[in-house]
């Protein structure tokens, strides 16, 4: 609750900071300070210190799972601000507004992570989506940006329509939007709740870009300004996954057998399409878009399994995936050439940057000793714990092996190809990259420093 109210207020403050402050560095300073404060008050709430006592009528519930995820999301956003906030200046003139929109998105993320009523889920998803449509089209003169923005908007609004129909049908069956009070009997699967559940499944798959509802993702991620793709593909996607898990755990937990098979198929198709298509990409930005689809396939395994290790794992996955992808995108922002050739010879010019980038890529590929490996391990373990779906585990491992190919192409370009990667970075940027790389290795060795927050 602390972070929710503060983030809404910070959004308004950022709106006016664009008018009051003339210097862009001052705006950036306000944003980073505000986000750090946001992270602090949220961690305080995780330790049991509440600043606001507001009766939400049971529509929201801030448990440790939600609060820990919000902390991870805020931390990843802070890292994102530190690494890439300067690159937002290149996008357009409305510098302060971009920060304001991101703060509003954070507001939506908090709602999605802590909802107990389908109304809050709907509002959260919309508060995330609407600013994202704007950010995608932030570069007004860029035709690709326009196209991505319009596509994102039409597809997003369409999937919102599906979701609302699902919610309406569930309301018809249950008579309430409160997920606690909904009790669907498994013996008599009525038409209304099952149809509603399927519509919600499809619309959430749209939002997390799971195949076969993924077709908008590459175009939108490619068309959007790279700085905003970085945020969209990481923090936002992880947040929608948390909403997905909460929805299917708490609302539809009773008829898991009904949707588990659907999810297994969706996860398998997502893994397949994401990984195989990523192999054929020539642009690193587009490759990362497909890789985000592939990683979504892995995260879907947690929704499939829905047990303790799935919930622990999804938090670790969110942290590992967000940090690594934000790091890669922050380097991509500095490059002019987004193809694989653009990375040629980076290791000779910027050995520190190339080294950090290698760790990020290894983490995404799931090589041991990195956080990405343990995250994938938790996902697979959760599926094995359910006792079903062994074929899914084997398939996922195979697909992870495929993913090594396209992540290593970037490493190969950096280390073993001659060329002039065109990049200039500051010393502070290098330090930030190294810190994140170190963090990924620490998380990969001692995951408990993150997961223990759930219990203590």
């Amino acid at each position, binding site marked *: 609750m602390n972070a929710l109210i503060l983030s809404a207020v910070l959004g*308004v403050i950022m*709106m*006016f900071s664009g*008018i009051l402050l003339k210097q862009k560095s001052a705006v950036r300073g306000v944003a980073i300070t505000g986000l750090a404060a946001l992270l602090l008050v949220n961690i305080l709430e995780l330790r049991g210190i509440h600043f606001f006592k507001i009766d939400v009528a049971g529509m929201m519930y801030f448990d440790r799972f939600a609060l820990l995820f919000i902390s991870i999301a805020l931390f990843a956003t802070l890292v994102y601000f530190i690494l890439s906030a300067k690159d937002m200046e290149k996008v357009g003139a409305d510098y302060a507004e971009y920060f304001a929109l991101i703060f509003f998105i954070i507001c939506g993320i908090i709602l999605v992570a802590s909802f107990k009523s389908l109304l809050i889920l709907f509002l959260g998803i919309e508060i995330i989506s609407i600013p994202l449509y704007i950010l995608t089209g932030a570069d007004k003169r860029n035709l690709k940006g326009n196209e991505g923005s319009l596509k994102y908007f039409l597809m997003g609004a369409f999937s919102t329509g599906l979701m609302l129909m699902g919610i309406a049908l569930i309301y018809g069956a249950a008579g309430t939007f409160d997920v606690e009070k909904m009790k669907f009997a498994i013996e008599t699967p009525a038409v209304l709740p099952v149809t509603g559940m399927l519509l919600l499944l499809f619309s959430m798959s749209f939002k997390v870009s799971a195949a076969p509802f993924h077709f908008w993702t590459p175009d939108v991620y490619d068309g959007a300004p790279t700085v905003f793709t970085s945020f969209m593909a990481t923090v936002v996607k992880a947040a929608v996954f948390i909403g997905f898990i909460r929805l299917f755990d708490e609302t539809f937990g009773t008829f898991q057998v009904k949707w588990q098979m659907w999810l297994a198929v969706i996860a398998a198709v997502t893994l397949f399409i994401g990984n195989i298509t990523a192999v054929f990409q020539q642009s690193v930005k587009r490759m990362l878009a497909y890789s985000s689809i592939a990683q979504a396939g892995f995260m879907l395994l947690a929704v499939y399994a829905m047990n303790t290790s799935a919930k622990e794992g999804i938090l670790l996955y969110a942290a590992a995936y967000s940090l690594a992808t934000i790091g890669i995108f922050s380097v991509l922002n500095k490059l002019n050439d987004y193809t694989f050739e653009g990375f040629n010879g980076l290791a000779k010019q910027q050995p520190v940057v190339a080294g950090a980038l290698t760790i990020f890529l290894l983490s995404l590929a799931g090589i041991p000793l990195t956080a990405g490996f343990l995250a994938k391990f938790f996902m697979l373990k959760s599926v094995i714990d359910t006792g079903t779906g062994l074929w899914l585990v084997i398939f996922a491992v195979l697909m992870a092996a495929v993913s090594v190919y396209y992540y290593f192409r970037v490493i190969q370009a950096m280390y073993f190809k001659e060329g002039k990667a065109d990049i200039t970075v500051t010393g502070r940027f290098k330090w930030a990259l190294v810190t994140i790389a170190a963090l990924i290795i620490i998380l990969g060795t001692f995951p408990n420093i993150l997961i223990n927050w759930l219990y203590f």
Partner: protein
Amino acid sequence: MIHLLQINPSTAEAGSYLPVAIQLIFAVGLVSVLMVATHLLGPKRKTSDKLQNFASGIESHGDARQPMAIKYFLTAILFVLFDVEVIFFYPYAVNFKELGWSGFWAVLMFVGFFLCGFTYIIKKGALKWED
């Protein structure tokens, strides 16, 4: 089956529709009589001027699909936004007494956020008409 609209079934007989039917016949009849009458009685002038678009009596020129100033669009959109937000005052107005002071503070906060947006629009110059 649950009845959603509370129509009293006893009044829904065929006889009670008679006034509606008379009204319908009268309306359709009046329109058709007037149309036929103007067609027969009115003078007929067949000139090329009649085929042109009527633009307040001024001679029309150019294409209607010209670029339009973006501020019309902006004002229209802002109107839609602020107009629809008022919807939240309806439940409050109905339950004004029951909600008491806590409801009042909540609505005041809502209006406060609203005013922030409004000030922002004015400061940004979105409502400036003269260039």
